[in-house]
């Protein structure tokens, strides 16, 4: 009997919960996916636009920022806004034909777009470094995309985080965590104000019934374009953070799975709530990263699979017992039919 209890205790050892490094990693991934999912929330939760191309927009943001800094030689101050504009432009370009499609076809068209972006990045080796990422290009020009960020990060670590006494990887990651969550918070507040405005009311009307909105003089297509454009711009920010975190950019980071995980965050938190995205992303990444720490005597591949099995189970249970998500409004879900 006690032997069983012993093994169970070993299996659910909770040491990792008291370690900085665990929470910092959870926080960084939760933050990056939170930023991605904020854009999806605007599209799916408020406009009724099923955008499945978010990983593609993230890729365009990441690659264009890196190329503008490394190959063109721009500073962050110029490259980051410019890469965001490029991504918004890509969003509008995709929207032009795709937003004329009905919701499910729109989902297919956007996922196809996202794969076109990724596979192009994979094969345009001169520009993107293909499968090896941008590392080689950086060496050629002796310019590293992440250099200015590393300087800033060190400064934050030395001047603001010294009292905490972090070291090693934590010292590098903590400033990134801070910047990501400050950005995430600011975006969530800004978007919340935006959807509460008359502009946001038109978005919700389009989500409910596009024809009703058009019959009241609202240009539904234009609003859907604006929604998609803003969402793409936000995905670009997530792309930069991903590069800061990985210190390189690789097409494998932009597989459709990334969009699906962002959707899991969205559904977990609940539709039509930006606060829900923040809660959803923390819960989801705590679960995914926490499962990695549980020692069941499994090998690496098995653990990797187990993480997603459990995450999937949680989503199924959520759909069964709380389909509106943690923060979603049940009325809006039921009545929206």
């Amino acid at each position, binding site marked *: 009997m006690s032997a069983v209890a012993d093994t169970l205790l070993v299996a659910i050892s909770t040491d990792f919960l008291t370690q900085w490094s665990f929470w910092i990693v959870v926080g960084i991934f939760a933050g990056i996916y939170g930023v991605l999912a904020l854009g999806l929330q605007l599209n799916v939760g408020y406009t009724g636009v099923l955008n499945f191309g978010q990983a593609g927009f993230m890729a365009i943001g990441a690659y264009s920022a890196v190329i503008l800094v490394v190959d063109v030689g721009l500073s962050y101050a110029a490259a980051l806004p410019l890469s965001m504009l490029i991504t918004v432009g890509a969003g509008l370009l995709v929207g032009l034909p795709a937003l004329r499609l009905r919701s499910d076809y729109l989902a297919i068209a956007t996922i196809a777009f996202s794969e076109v972006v990724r596979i192009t990045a994979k094969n345009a080796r001169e520009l993107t470094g293909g499968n090896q990422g941008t590392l080689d290009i950086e060496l050629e020009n002796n310019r590293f995309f992440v250099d200015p960020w590393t300087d800033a990060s060190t400064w934050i670590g030395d001047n603001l985080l010294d009292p905490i006494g972090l070291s090693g990887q934590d010292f590098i990651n903590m400033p990134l965590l801070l910047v990501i969550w400050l950005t995430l918070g600011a975006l969530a507040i800004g978007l919340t104000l935006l959807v509460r*405005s008359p*502009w946001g009311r038109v978005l*919700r009307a389009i989500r409910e019934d596009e024809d009703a909105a058009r019959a009241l*003089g609202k240009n539904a297509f234009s609003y859907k374009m604006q929604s998609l454009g803003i969402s793409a711009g936000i995905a670009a920010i997530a792309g930069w953070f991903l590069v800061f975190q990985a210190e390189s950019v690789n097409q494998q980071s932009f597989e459709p799975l990334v969009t699906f995980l962002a959707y899991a965050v969205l559904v977990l938190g609940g539709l039509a709530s930006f606060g829900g995205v923040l809660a959803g992303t923390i819960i989801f990444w705590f679960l995914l990263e926490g499962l990695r720490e549980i020692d069941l005597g499994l090998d690496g591949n098995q653990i990797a699979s187990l993480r997603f099995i459990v995450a999937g189970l949680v989503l199924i249970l959520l759909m069964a017992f709380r389909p509106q998500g943690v923060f979603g409004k049940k009325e809006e879900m039921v009545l929206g039919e």
Partner: protein
Amino acid sequence: MNERADSGNVNGKEPILAVAGVHKRFGGIHAVRGAHFSVAEGSITALIGPNGAGKTTLFNVITGFYPPDAGMISYQGRSIYGKAPHRIAQRGMIRTFQITKALRAMPVIDNMLLAGSRQPGEHLHSLLTQPRASRRREAEVRERALELLASFDLDKKLDDYAGTLSGGQRKLLELARALMAEPRMVLLDEPMAGINPTLGRRLLEHMQKLREEDGVTFLFVEHDMDVVMNQSDEVIVMANGETLIQDKPEVVRADPRVIDAYLGGGGVAEKAEASPPAESEEHA
């Protein structure tokens, strides 16, 4: 079949809406095959006809929801043929739908505020550059919304989701919302269907009052013949995708072709009404 196209000139006014030779096909189905009528400014005009006559399709064509295949549609003296629905709505022609389109997962008050016109806060640029103008307009629009809701007995439902209202209440909400948009012309698709007689009367009173006080023009599809005959200045009859006749209610009531269209069959008309004049054959 296209006679009396000019009969919309009640009181010698220019027609606010003129429709001529409008056709709409869906593949092999010729849903509207020659619609021809005009609506006088400030009038109340009924559009009647048996089921499948093409009334709703014609509404959809006029308001831009279906692109027309041929014809001419002019509103306030300018063509709206093939224009986008929101452009037509922005020019003051607001419609309702046969199956009500209340925005169900939005509160009643938001349904109303949405329809308020000239709200700078609906455009990202002006929302960010002149937030005060947006708030000021919001207050004005809200005041008007509360007035309208009160007159439709919906003021106690202000913060309820529109989806929780009864079918009749949703119908009233849709009409109130249409009036929020400060329309010059309102197209109602079966406004009386599914609402109780008391509220129905109130809806009709509203219609008459708006026409008298503000000169709003109404065109409505309706199957209740009492309402059609008592409320409208003119009646347009459609059958088989064509407009048969446009005239005053008492004239239409006596026209054998109308009875024919409703009852079907060529011979019925002669038996049903006295003095059949030049009988039309094209729809038999």
